[in-house]
Every structure is written in C-alpha cells, then in structure tokens.
C-alpha cells in the first residue's frame, strides 16, 4: 500500500505539468458537478419535506395553459359544510402592499405577510422555534413570525407573547416563531396571520362574503383514499348557479401541491409562492455532465500518453517478478488516488468559491451538505466507479503486455491511437462551441428583452406610496413640483414587475354579451405621456376634465382579444356592487410590456381611478450628481411626510432590469460554468500539444535541418488542432442551433438566432485553441535541432 502512494507521488513529481493539468481539470469539473448537482437536488426536491405532502392539493387550473390559482374565499365555507373527504381546506393570501412592522420605538421594518386559515400547519410541516404551531393561528390579532423577521424585530430575545405594531395601527401578539426549512420551498413568508385577523386589519370589501372576489389560494388536505378528481367535481358544484358556466369554475381541478413549483404558474396577489424552472435545472445538469465529460476526456488523453512509458516500466517489473494482478492493482489504484485527490480539491474549491458563486449566480444551497456522510459516501463511490471505468482498459493492456516486448521498446504510438485522441478532442471542442454559442444567445435574449419594453423607462423615479404619503398626496405633489429637476409627475398603480389586478366579468356591451378577461391598473393623465405610450385611436386622459374619472384606456390586445370593432365609446361596469357607474373606453394605446417579459402581453385596461400605489417622477437631468441630490432631497421630504412608514425610492429602468433577474442569473451561471468548461478544454489541448511536440521532437529537428522555418513548423504542429476545431464546428453548429431554438421557444418575445452567434463561437474556440497550442508549438519549433538529433 505504502508503495502505491510512493510510486504515485513519484510519477506525479516526474511530470508535474501534465499531472497538474490532469488534477486541476478534474478538480474544477468535479467542483462544478458538485455545485450543480447539489443545487439541482435541492430544486428537484422542493416541497418534499411536508409530511402530508402527498395528500395536499391546490385547487387551480395548473393543468392547462392559464395556470390560475385563485378562488373566492366563500368556497371554503361551502367545502367545510358539504364535502366530508376534505380533511381541511386552507385559504392563503398575500397582501397588496407589504405592511410595516414596528416593535416599541425601534425602526420600522417593511416586510411581507400572508394570511391563512388556522389549519395551515396541519398541511405544511414547519418546526416551531417558539410556541406551539397547532394553536398559533386560532386567535384573532395574533401573528406567527418567521425566524429571520423575529430576529430583526426582537434581536435574540424571546418573541413569544410580545406585541408589535402593524402599519402603525394594529397591535398584534406573537403567538409563535417558526423556523424556516433548510430544504427548498415554494412557500415563502416573513409572517403569518390568521384570516380572522385579515378581516380586521386588511378589510377588503366583501372578500370573505361575496363570490366575486377571487383573492385566495386554496390548499386542500384530502382524507386518505379520497379521489381527487371526484372531490374537485364536487367542489365545482358548490358555486352559485349563475357562476357554474364560468370557464374558470369549470376548469379548476385539484392539482398536487408538489407539482406546483415547476408548473410555471401565474403568480398573483402578493408573491409568497415561488416557482422554479425545470428546464434551467435540466440545462445546468447537462452542463455539469458536459464539463465532466470534457475533464474525463482530458484524463483519458493524458493517461493514455503515459501508458507507453508505463509499459516500459512494467517490463522491468515483470522481469523482476511482478505478476499480472499486482500490476493491474497498482495502475488502478494510481488512477483512484488521482480521482480522490481531485475530489478533495473540488470540495475545497466549492467551499472557497461558494460565497462568490452564490452571489454571482443566485444559486443557493446549504454548503454544510458537503460534509454530510451521505454526500461523502455517494461522491467517493461515484469517484471510485469513474476511476475504475476510465482506467480499467489501459490497466488491462499494461498488465497483460509481454515483458520482452516492453523491454525491446517495440511499441510505437500507432496512428490509430492518435486518431481516437483526435476524435476525443473534437468532441471536447464541439461541446465548447455549443456552450459558447449558448452563452452568447442567452446574453442576446436578455439584451433584447430589456431593450424592447416598448415604453420609456430612463430617468424615471418611482416613490412607493405609504399610507401616510397617500393621505398627503397633494402635499407630496407640491413638494416635487417645486424641485427644479422634476419633470412630469404621475400617480399610478403601475410598476414593472408588480402584478396587477386580473378581472373576469360578464358584461353587456352595445347589446352583446361579452366575457371580459383583463388586467387593470390605475393611471392618470400624465402616465401615458411619461411612459411615451402611443395612441392608436381616441384620446388620452386629460388633466383638465373632471369628467374623465370613469373613463378607460385599453391596449391593442384588449381590442383584439374581445373582437371589438368599435372600442371607443364602449361602456360597461367596472367593479362590484350596486350603483357603480358605467365606465367608458376613450382611447386605445399600442401594446407595451407591463408584465414580466416571459409572459405574453395581456388585455389591459388603464383606469383613471383614485387608488394609487406609486408616484412616478420623470427627471430632466441625467447628470449623476444632480440626480443623486434630487433623490436625497426627495427622500428627506418624504420621510418627513411619512414618519412611521419607511419610503422606498427606486428607478424604473432598474425595476425593469430586475424582471430579468432570473435570466441574468441564468446567463451568469451558464457563462461561468461554460467558461470553466472552456478552461478545462484548454488544459486538455495544452497537454495534447505537449505530447504532440514531445513525440515529434525528432521530426521537427529533421524538418528544420532540411530547411523548414519556425513558422512552417508551427503551422505544421497547429494544423491538426485547427482541423479538429473545424470538424467540431461542423458537428456543433446544428446541435447548438437545435438546443437554442428549443430554449427560445419558451419566450413570448424572442431574439432571433443570427448566424454570427455560431461564427463567433467557432472563431472563439479556434482562437483559444490556437493560442493554447501555439505556446507549445513555438517552444518546440524554436528549439535547437541538434538536441533532438543527437545520436543515441
């Protein structure tokens, strides 16, 4: 055993360059594989930690294209009364605006909240840090805090039983503190209040009593053995008669809660639900596999070049009396030691690079996972298998070669060997080209998206209206107006990425029954001109006309979707209840992206209503200093106006960019890993060129003596590699084209696949290859031929 370590060490020291390349390449690729597989594992096992998870359903139409999740709250009361198979039904909802928490006189903190029925913790398995979760939501005016928020509000003190102020108005008692799970979850919240509490503090019209308010998500725990389809049919029958024909009512089914995360659902109303993208996980897993392949190819190439020497060495060993198995063992264990070393290096690399990688790419997982026994066992076993798979054939060849042959040195590196190596290197380059092309495409799509919002977003500041600012809206307006740098001012509910109300209603328009389905937000006269929305028909809101209060502007999609020939002047009721006046469409504007760009543009109505949540201000300077000055002054002023609620000020273009966060992070992840793949590729060809030059030293010498110039020798040495890249390019282009067009399919608005993406990828690969190889070729070509030709 000790012998094996000694000989491994000596072999390593003898050829440090190639062995380091081998080790480094393997370590980097294993580090990527570790990061990506742990990340994918945590994504793919999202929501698996709930004990009753297999019996928890969400009432929705996830199974078809709309993927809506909302239901009216009244439904639950009916379910409780009429459907015995349902063990418990829990309504969960977020809030329009994040509330402000305050403990005593400490600084107020803005954070999200959800409200739920008391059985919430029966469906979802959470651990309590303080208090008893089962009882925690029973009483009104109590609140369950998630541990991070509890820490922020109460520090390290106990929070249980203490009180806090919500929105500077309501006093709530902390009834429990809940630990956040380490596993990935599609539910995220900073606190939970009961729906009884919601009735008191977020009273929102008749949301608990009327069928028209679809504000909640409904999670259902079925009794064991209950049939989800039958139950869903029963649930649909509970709606009042006039709603039974509603498409949405008919479409809803009970979908497994664990399918929610990857279902691409439409989030609405508070974003406590998070979705993942299975395709991205799969693509990243594929990248991990490709990187591993590249590193393994390096391993094969490098070690196969070393076989020759090893064969000579074993010849001597055999003469001295070594048998077949002992040689087999020593070759195999040498490979295993190399793999094992690279595994430990990889774990170290992951540890060191994780903070950076995680902040750069947004990939999160618990790094302690790396030291759990199951991870170590799995990875060491995996490493063992890999090393065995990739060294058993050379080991057999070496151990079964005849001693006499070995000593006679009659074994030549045949041309078949170099052909197979050529194929492997070609495969590596093909992978590298696909990865480069894909990286370029993702970047192009991100650029395309953020430059095609179809509204002006530069130099606009958004001030989020707190309750206190809303009350003093006119004062705020006056203050901003007086500032020399302020341009237009608009009060609106529009903000990129904020989801808007989605309404469906049956209306009689011009004597025709139409089912309307649309998004809506409030805007005022200056909004359209500030965003540069283009008018197609009719007119925009006017500041001077008081009569504009029940007028509406719609977008082109709205007109198209509802097949309206004469949209201008169409009147219908907006809202619920009696005595609501008719609203009238006065204008049609061109489509623009008011939603995240992955989603298609929907039907939109801009109302001229009084409720607003943002104050948008266009600034007439792009000078950084005066901009900064402006923001600071507005901040001081608004803080004065809104002392108990912190005011958020942001830039509109930044908000738009945030919509692309996941794409940008994906691009970063992808380019980081593709970059590593390319580096490993380079290491591989570096080793290859090292061998090629060594093998051809004599030939180079002969050629030089016969009149070859340095440049000609370099050309000769590089020619092989260029040929491999060319073949790789031919193979990679269609593959990359196919993958890329598949990937683009998921975007409603997508950039096109230009030819230059492929050309760029090919040229980059060629450039990288030439740079790497030429370094060695140059060294070999400028060497004095006398050294190579000295008589043996």
């Amino acid at each position, binding site marked *: 055993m000790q012998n094996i370590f000694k000989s491994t060490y000596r072999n390593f020291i003898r050829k440090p360059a190639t062995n380091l390349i081998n080790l480094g390449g393997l370590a980097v690729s294993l580090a990527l594989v570790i990061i990506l597989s742990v990340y994918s594992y945590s994504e793919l096992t999202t929501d698996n930690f709930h004990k009753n998870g297999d019996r928890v359903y969400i009432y929705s139409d996830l199974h078809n294209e709309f993927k809506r999740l909302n239901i009216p709250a009244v439904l639950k009361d009916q379910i409780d009364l009429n459907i015995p198979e349902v063990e418990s039904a829990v309504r969960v909802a977020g809030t329009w605006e994040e509330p402000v928490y305050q403990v005593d006189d400490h600084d107020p903190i803005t954070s999200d909240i959800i409200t739920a029925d008391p059985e919430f913790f029966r469906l979802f398995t959470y651990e309590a840090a303080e208090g008893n979760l089962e009882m925690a939501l029973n009483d009104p005016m109590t609140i369950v805090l998630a541990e991070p928020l509890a820490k922020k509000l109460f520090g390290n003190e106990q929070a249980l039983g203490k009180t806090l102020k919500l929105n500077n108005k309501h006093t709530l008692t902390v009834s429990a503190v809940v630990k956040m799970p380490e596993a990935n979850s599609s539910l995220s919240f900073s606190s939970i209040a009961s729906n009884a509490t919601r009735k008191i503090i977020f009273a929102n019209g008749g949301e608990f009593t009327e069928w028209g308010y679809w504000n909640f998500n409904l999670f259902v725990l079925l009794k064991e053995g209950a049939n989800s389809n039958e139950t869903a049919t029963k649930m649909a029958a509970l709606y009042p008669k006039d709603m039974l024909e509603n498409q949405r009512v008919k479409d809803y089914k009970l979908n497994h809660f664990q399918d929610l995360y990857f279902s691409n659902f439409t989030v609405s109303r508070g974003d406590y639900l998070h979705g993942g993208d299975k395709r991205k996980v799969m693509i990243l897993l594929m990248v991990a596999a490709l990187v591993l392949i590249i590193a393994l190819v390096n391993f094969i190439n490098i070690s196969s070049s070393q076989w020759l020497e090893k064969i000579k060495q074993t010849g001597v060993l055999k003469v001295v009396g070594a048998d077949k198995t002992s040689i087999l063992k020593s070759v195999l264990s040498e490979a295993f030691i190399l793999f094992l070393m690279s595994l430990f290096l990889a774990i170290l690399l992951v540890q060191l690079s994780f903070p950076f990688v995680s902040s750069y790419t947004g990939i999160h997982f618990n790094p302690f996972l790396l030291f759990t026994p199951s991870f170590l066992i799995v990875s060491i076993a995996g490493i063992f298998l890999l090393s065995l798979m990739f060294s058993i054939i050379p080991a057999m060849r070496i151990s079964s070669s005849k001693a006499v042959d070995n000593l006679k040195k009659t074994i030549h590196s045949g041309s078949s060997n170099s052909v197979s190596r050529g194929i492997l290197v070609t495969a590596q380059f093909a992978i590298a080209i696909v990865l480069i092309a894909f990286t370029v495409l993702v970047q192009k799509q991100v650029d395309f998206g953020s430059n095609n919002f179809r509204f002006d977003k530069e130099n606009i500041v958004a001030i989020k209206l707190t309750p206190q600012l809303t009350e003093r809206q006119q004062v705020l307006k006056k203050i901003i107006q007086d500032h020399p740098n302020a341009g237009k001012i608009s009060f609106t509910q529009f903000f990129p990425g904020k989801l808007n109300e989605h309404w469906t209603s049956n209306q009689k328009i011009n004597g025709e029954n139409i089912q309307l389905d649309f998004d809506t937000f409030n805007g005022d006269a200056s909004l359209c001109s500030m965003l540069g929305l283009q008018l197609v028909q009719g007119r925009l809101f006017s500041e001077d006309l008081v009569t504009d209060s029940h007028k509406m502007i719609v977008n082109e999609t709205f007109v198209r979707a509802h097949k309206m020939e004469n949209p201008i002047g169409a009147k219908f009721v907006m809202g619920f209840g009696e005595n609501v006046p008719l609203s009238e469409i006065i204008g049609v504007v061109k489509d623009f992206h008011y939603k995240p760009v992955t989603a298609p543009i929907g039907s939109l109505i801009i109302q001229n209503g009084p409720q607003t949540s943002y104050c948008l201000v266009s600034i007439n300077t792009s000078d950084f200093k005066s901009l900064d000055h402006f923001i600071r002054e507005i901040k001081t002023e608004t803080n004065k106006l809104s002392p108990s609620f912190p005011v958020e000020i942001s830039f509109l273009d930044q908000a738009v960019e945030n919509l692309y966060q996941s794409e940008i992070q994906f691009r970063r992840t992808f380019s980081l890993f593709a970059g590593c793949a390319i580096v490993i590729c380079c290491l591989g060809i570096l080793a290859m060129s090292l061998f090629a030059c060594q093998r051809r030293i004599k030939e180079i010498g002969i050629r030089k003596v*016969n*009149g070859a110039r340095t440049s000609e020798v370099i050309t000769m040495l590089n020619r092989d590699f260029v040929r491999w890249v060319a073949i790789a390019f031919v193979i990679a282009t269609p593959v990359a084209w196919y993958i890329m067009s598949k990937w683009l399919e998921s975007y409603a608005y997508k950039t096109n696949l230009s030819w230059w993406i492929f050309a760029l990828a090919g040229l980059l690969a060629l450039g990288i290859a030439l740079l790497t190889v030429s370094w060695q070729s140059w060294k070999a070509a400028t060497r004095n031929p006398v050294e190579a030709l000295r*008589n043996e």
Partner: protein
Amino acid sequence: MIHLNNIDKYYDSKFQRTFVLKAVNLEIKDGEFVSIMGPSGSGKSTLLNIIGLLDTPSAGEYSLYDKSVLDLKEKAKVDYHRNFMGFIFQAYHLIEEMTVYENIETPLIYKGVKSKDRQAMVADLLDRFNMVAKKDLFPQQLSGGQQQLVGIARAIIGKPKLLLADEPTGNLQSVQGEMIMETLKALNDEGMTIIQVTHNEKFAGYGKRIIRLEDGIVRKDVKNV
C-alpha cells in the same frame, strides 16, 4: 569555401570552463572530401554542427565564401539549409510517418519547388539509387543501408554545394557501409564538397583529406593520396 578562424567552443560551469573545441583553424575548398576523425568526445560532431550552422561557436570567426555567417538571422540560416548544404546522420533520421518518396520530397517542398518539378527530381534520384520500386515503402520496411541511401537522397535533392555527414556508416554493416561511401565518392567526383565525421579508418580513407581531432584540438591535417 569554408574558413574557420580560431574557433572555440566551451561550456562554463561553476568553477571551470570545459572546452569542446579549442582554436580550430580550418580552410576547406570547393570540391574537397574531408574526413574528420577522432575518439568519442573529441568535438567532431560539434565541429560539424558549427559548420552546418546548427550550433554556434563561443569564439572565433566563421565565413562561407568570405561572408561571415556567425550572426545570421533565423531566416538567412534557413536559406543556407535550403539551398547550400545537406545533412546525413548516423541514425538516418527519416520521418517514420512518411514514405520513401515523401521523405525525399520534403526539402523541395520547403524550397518552394513546384509539384511537377518535384516529381521529376525525386524520380531522377530514385532512379539513380535504384530505389524506384521502394518509393512507397516506409522507412521501417527498409534495411539500414537503404535507409541511409534515402537519407543521402534527401540531403542532395536540393542540389547543395556542401554535404555534411555525421557518421553516415556508424549503424551499418561493412558491405552496406562501403556502398554508402561509394555513393559519397561518386557525388564528390561530380563536384560536391563533402565533410564527413567517422570512426572508421577504412571509410575515412575515402576522403581526400583527413583531419584528426583530439580533445577539441586539431592534431593532424593531412592530404590523403
């Protein structure tokens, strides 16, 4: 043709200077056939390499046709290799991946000779050395003597004025060695200047002039009639 004046070649190690060649003066005229002899390590090969511009002396002057060739740029050196001199080695140094034909053709490719002319020139030489039948074989498939013939063919295909041979018969049996020496002699008779390094007294005798080196110093320089 060749003029060596006070050529030194030495290596400096920590405390002492080891001379490989010391104060070598040599004048070689067009059409000479010179054999350089001496025991191992006497500096024969180094001298040949210096003459062949493969190595540079540590001190002294070296001129070809009264033109100093000591500080030549790489490009000029390559031009000498292409047009002025040819090399033969003890281990033949043929390119194993190439056929006989391709091996002989290589220098012409570097010289930029057109494909058609190359064909004619290689065919002539193959004919002259009676190797037409072997032109598609690889070096391993030939006997040592035949391999060395290919080596000579490759060395002279560019019609050099000077042929440098480093123990051309060292790896050969005596019959084959003699054949090689006869070939060299014939080339010399046609006017080619030849310098050979050899251990073998008999083969040295083919030269018209014999130079004996010992410890890097020219001990003897005699005409051989």
